[in-house]
């Protein structure tokens, strides 16, 4: 939740809460993952065309579901709220700038 209380995931991590290892079990020698798929945000691909998109999971709007925040090389942050979860399919709404208290999009200095 931003701003405000610590989001669930961060609290869990800080508290050292772990995910159940039995559920993580995988046969050796095979890929741990399903074939990768591109995430969409609104009617476009998430992070498409950004310079070195760096996604992180974070509950931004305090709903409290995992949204996605995407940083990039030039120091800007956008986020895409989780709009719908239908079983294992999660739909993200359109990306928008992550704004600071000034109302402008946050910008971390690069050179």
């Amino acid at each position, binding site marked *: 939740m*931003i701003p405000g209380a610590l989001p669930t*995931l961060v609290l869990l991590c800080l508290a050292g809460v772990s995910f159940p290892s039995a559920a993580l079990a995988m046969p050796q020698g095979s890929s741990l993952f*399903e074939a990768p798929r*591109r995430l969409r945000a609104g009617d476009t691909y998430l*992070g498409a065309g950004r310079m*070195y*998109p760096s*996604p992180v999971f974070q509950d931004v709007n305090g709903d409290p579901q995992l949204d996605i925040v995407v940083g990039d090389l030039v120091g800007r942050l956008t986020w895409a709220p989780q709009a719908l979860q239908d079983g294992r399919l999660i739909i993200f709404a359109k990306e928008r700038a992550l704004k600071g208290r000034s109302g402008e999009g946050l910008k971390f200095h690069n050179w």
Partner: protein
Amino acid sequence: MSPQFVDFNADGHVDILTATFDGSPHISFGSKEGFGKPEHILDSKGERILISSFWNYKDHQHQETGRALGVETPPKERCISALAFDWDADGDYDLLLGGYEKGHLYRQMNEGTNAEPRFTGKNIAVMAGDAPFGIEAKMTSPRLVDWDGDGDMDIIAGSFGDVWGQGPGGGVFLYRNTGTRGKPVFAAAETLIPVSLKGKALPTRPDAGLYVDAADYDGDGDLDLVVGGYSMWTPEGPELSSAQQDRAKQLAAKKGALQKESLELSRAINREILAVTKGMERGSKELRLKAAEIRATHSKKTRNLSKSIRAVSQELESLVPAPKRKSFVWLYERKQVRPGNDSRN
């Protein structure tokens, strides 16, 4: 620039910690009104935290210093990632600093508190197995996550690989924490996502510049990965007749010549700008206006060259598709496990 959301100053509000290619960690402090303007994190002497290479905003140039590594001749290592992590479990956040060039990881200890940090200004190399933590293909950013569910923080990290050419791309690696609370020990790397060998006709994965994070995306009790990066692929072209092959060769040669001409023109314009603006303050309005004026005098030729390159490229593309490169964000969903399978995670 991979952000970490963390209550860095322990005021009950989430802050955003990251590092950029200026070589230092930055923080945007959160409050009930929202995030503040990002600023550099400083050490106990009030100096910028870094590894060795950094962008000097005052001198407008990249520089190196050995002060954080305790060496006179520093290697070129730019801190482009930073994480808050209570390394010694003393109740305050220390910093992990990730280097770009060799993918080294350093820790810088906090001898103060979260509310009043005193970072030492001295970096200590983090080990992975018996060797210093390193990713030869350049590290994007590490993330802290309890990957194996043993209650401590492991590290996952991505690599850049060859981000422009057809050489091997990036991957994602796991470094298990086999230490104890307050004494982390990271094992040698295990591969989570293999280095991309590219060569596909469609975007099938992030191939280079892999920035990773992990979470239980779908709520099924295991950790999935979300990975940003460049997909690099070359679409299959049509089968060419002999005449088309000849035409493709002609077009490729013409394109090369035009690009060379364009590059030479660009260099000549830059030389002219440098000569005419000599003595003007860098970044000043006067300099910008003069540079724009000079560029305008060459704009017709620049435009015509660009137009010619586009036309030739378009025709060539219809015969021999060029390699493509575009960034996306991908989900690597953890496979469901059948009972009775090996329990290694």
